[in-house]
């Protein structure tokens, strides 16, 4: 049992000036601090408590581009999309009270998926805190359980260090959202700005390396295993460790199964990739894990959507768990070999070590034979129809017309699972999704942020008709700034995933899932000044998708799909993962 830890965190102290410089407002310190940390893009919506900040932002508009969203949830999701697509820290700026509470869903989404964000919230003036002032809310308290760290800035002289530290903490170790709550008076007070050359804090975090001993123990176990599986997740993506992962598994010739958050961390089309595992994972992936004798878990957290019933998950496997966050290790499954390290560093160390071994070819031939049998027994597939567009067909056609190169940003629900299953990813940061929190409404604004981060790549938001209606107000933001976003609505007239569960587990009682009364999405698109298109038949699907994707601007493509298609395979919640329902 590991029962004691020690580290060396910093405490922000008010700096003593060594040389006189010109005094500037807190608001300007904040903007200069953002610029010093490499920020050129922020998403936000102004209000009373952040007026000084917006005033400075106006003066610095050449250096920092602010995108005016129409709802603060959109600002945070857009910042997330930007961060997920690049690995850089995303920045959102909102006002006090309702501005901050509207941002909470986005902050929690980023927290669950370990996305680096800095969210700046305005606060009522220091002297009014605690008086139930207009637009006052305890932002520090409300966001406390969903942030990596947070600040209530009480003194303008601390602000510069706080901004620098916020960016450091957002990226360091396991990334996450950091909130800076700034009372209005602090943004007006004067202080000195010292600049990055005089900063007291480091800007780049070191990547923790694995211990030599843990690597040796892991190597020994991996070489001894007869039925090993690499189970890889978001940690591989956030550490940008795809190359190192490919090196290790290619030397070893072992099967790999990514989680939803790990999609793209290993190319789906790679012959060693079994596809996603878990609740809607492939037959081969779930059975391989169930039968494995060694699970090499990299940057994963044994989420319930992956494991199903925990004590029957990989029941005969020993576990090597590589994670940057020590608290993830042993939280749900006790590993035989814990490796607390950055995924990139750990995989590189393993690859270097295995490169020295002479591994017999076909040493896992029996295992591969078994796996290939499972693969051909139940591949991911779908029967097309002549009259209706099948949702899987929509994703496969989208894959075809984008040459598999688009960044796919999903919302949450059935379409998300079909996108995960039927859009093979080539690279990290190609598949962006709200995995942990499962936030409907994430897709559209996140895709907007991703499109800004990757201006030369096609970015497609794949959303359901339910989630789309939660944040579709951001279409106008994309139109306003000429962000050439493409939105594909998989429209089945239902809150589809809930309907599927009601069909399968609640005796087809379709309680409050009918969305057949919805706006005309084509007209809605046109009302926003975007291009609206619709496909209703299989013949026109490809053509309509092409038209939409080729359009030079924001396109909303409403694809009417068969209403009661279900996502398969499915492991019922809390079930044993080898017991998949296949159709």
């Amino acid at each position, binding site marked *: *049992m*590991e*029962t004691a*830890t020690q580290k060396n965190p910093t*405490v922000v102290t008010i700096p003593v000036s060594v040389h006189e410089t010109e005094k500037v407002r807190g608001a300007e310190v904040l903007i200069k601090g953002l610029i010093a940390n490499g920020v050129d893009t922020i998403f936000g919506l102004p209000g009373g408590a952040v007026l000084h900040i917006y005033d400075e932002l106006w003066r610095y508009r050449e250096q920092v581009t602010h995108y005016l969203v129409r709802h603060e949830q959109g600002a945070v999701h857009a910042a997330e999309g930007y961060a997920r697509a690049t690995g850089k820290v995303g920045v959102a700026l909102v006002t006090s009270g309702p501005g901050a509470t509207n941002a909470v869903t986005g902050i929690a989404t980023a927290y669950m998926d370990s996305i680096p964000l800095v969210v700046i919230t305005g606060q009522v003036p220091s002297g009014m805190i605690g008086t139930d002032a207009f637009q006052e809310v305890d932002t520090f308290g409300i966001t*406390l359980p969903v942030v*990596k*760290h*947070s600040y209530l800035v009480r003194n303008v002289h601390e602000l510069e260090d706080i901004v620098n530290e916020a960016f450091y903490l957002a990226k360091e170790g396991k990334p996450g959202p950091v909130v800076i709550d700034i009372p209005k008076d602090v943004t007006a007070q004067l202080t000195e700005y010292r600049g990055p050359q005089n900063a007291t804090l480091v800007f780049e975090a070191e990547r923790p390396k694995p211990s030599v001993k843990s690597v040796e123990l892991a190597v020994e176990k991996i070489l001894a295993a007869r039925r090993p599986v690499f189970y890889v997740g978001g940690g591989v993506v956030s550490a940008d460790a795809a190359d190192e992962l490919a090196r290790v598994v290619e030397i070893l010739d072992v099967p790999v199964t990514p989680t939803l958050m790990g999609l793209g961390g290993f190319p789906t089309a790679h012959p060693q990739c079994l596809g996603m595992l878990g609740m809607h994972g492939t037959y081969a992936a779930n059975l391989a894990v169930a039968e494995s004798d060694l699970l090499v878990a990299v940057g994963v957290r044994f989420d319930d959507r992956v494991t199903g019933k925990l004590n029957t998950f990989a029941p005969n496997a020993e576990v090597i768990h590589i994670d940057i966050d020590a*608290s993830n290790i042993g939280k749900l499954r006790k590993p035989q070999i814990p490796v607390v390290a950055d995924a990139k560093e750990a995989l590189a160390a393993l690859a270097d070590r295995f490169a020295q071994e002479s591994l017999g070819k076909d040493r896992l031939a029996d295992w591969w034979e078994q796996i290939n049998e499972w693969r051909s027994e139940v591949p991911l597939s779908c029967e097309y129809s002549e009259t209706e567009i099948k949702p899987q067909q929509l994703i496969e056609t989208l894959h075809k017309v984008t040459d598999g190169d688009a960044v796919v940003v999903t919302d949450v629900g059935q379409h998300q699972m079909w996108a995960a299953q039927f859009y093979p990813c080539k690279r990290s940061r190609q598949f962006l999704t709200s995995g942990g929190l499962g936030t409907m409404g994430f897709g559209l604004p996140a895709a907007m942020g991703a499109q800004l981060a990757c201006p030369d790549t096609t970015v497609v938001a794949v959303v359901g008709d339910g989630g789309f209606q939660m944040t579709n107000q951001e279409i106008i933001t994309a139109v306003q700034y000429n962000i050439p976003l493409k939105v594909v609505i998989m429209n089945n007239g239902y809150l589809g995933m809930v309907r599927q569960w009601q069909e399968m587990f609640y005796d087809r009682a379709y309680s409050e899932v009918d969305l057949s009364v919805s706006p005309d999405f084509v007209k809605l698109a046109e009302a926003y000044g975007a291009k609206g298109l619709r496909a209703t038949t299989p013949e026109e699907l490809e053509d309509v998708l092409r038209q939409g994707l080729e359009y030079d601007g924001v396109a909303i493509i409403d694809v009417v799909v068969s209403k009661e298609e279900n996502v398969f395979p499915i492991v019922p919640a809390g079930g044993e993962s080898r017991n998949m329902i296949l159709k």
Partner: protein
Amino acid sequence: MRHTISIIVANEAGELSRIVGLFSARGYNIETISVGKTLDPRWSKATIVTSGDDTTIEQIVKQCSRLARVKEVKAVTTLPHIEREMALIDVSVTRGDERQEVMSLVNIFRAKVVDISHDKMILEMSGTQDKVETFIDMLKPLAINEVTRSGTVAITRLSALEGSEYALQRAA
């Protein structure tokens, strides 16, 4: 199982609520908590008594260590350590024999009388949680008006004796 955790955290507004919030968010119980600044006033030390199996305690240690302003976390009950709690106890004593009885308990337990009036005494007792509880229990036949307990504070120490209980535990 009962465990005492000691956490060194920045002496800043909001940092203690972050720790307490973590306990409630993750479903850990807080039996007692006591906090005071360390020798270096920029840091506070919190002593938390909680309960859980080994896995839970390990998780508590790891989860607390993740907090940005936490410098050190120790499950002190797995190390050689000293634990103390203090209680202030207000008892009614109206007759001379009652006062005699209280005084004899005070002597046996090495407690202190810190306030006295015609019909009341306030006692100060410090010791292990067990000892404090036994003392309160012994006073129960008399009329206890009020008890205020500090919660446990703890400090680790070097293992004094080779072959001591702790040394054996650690070796195992």
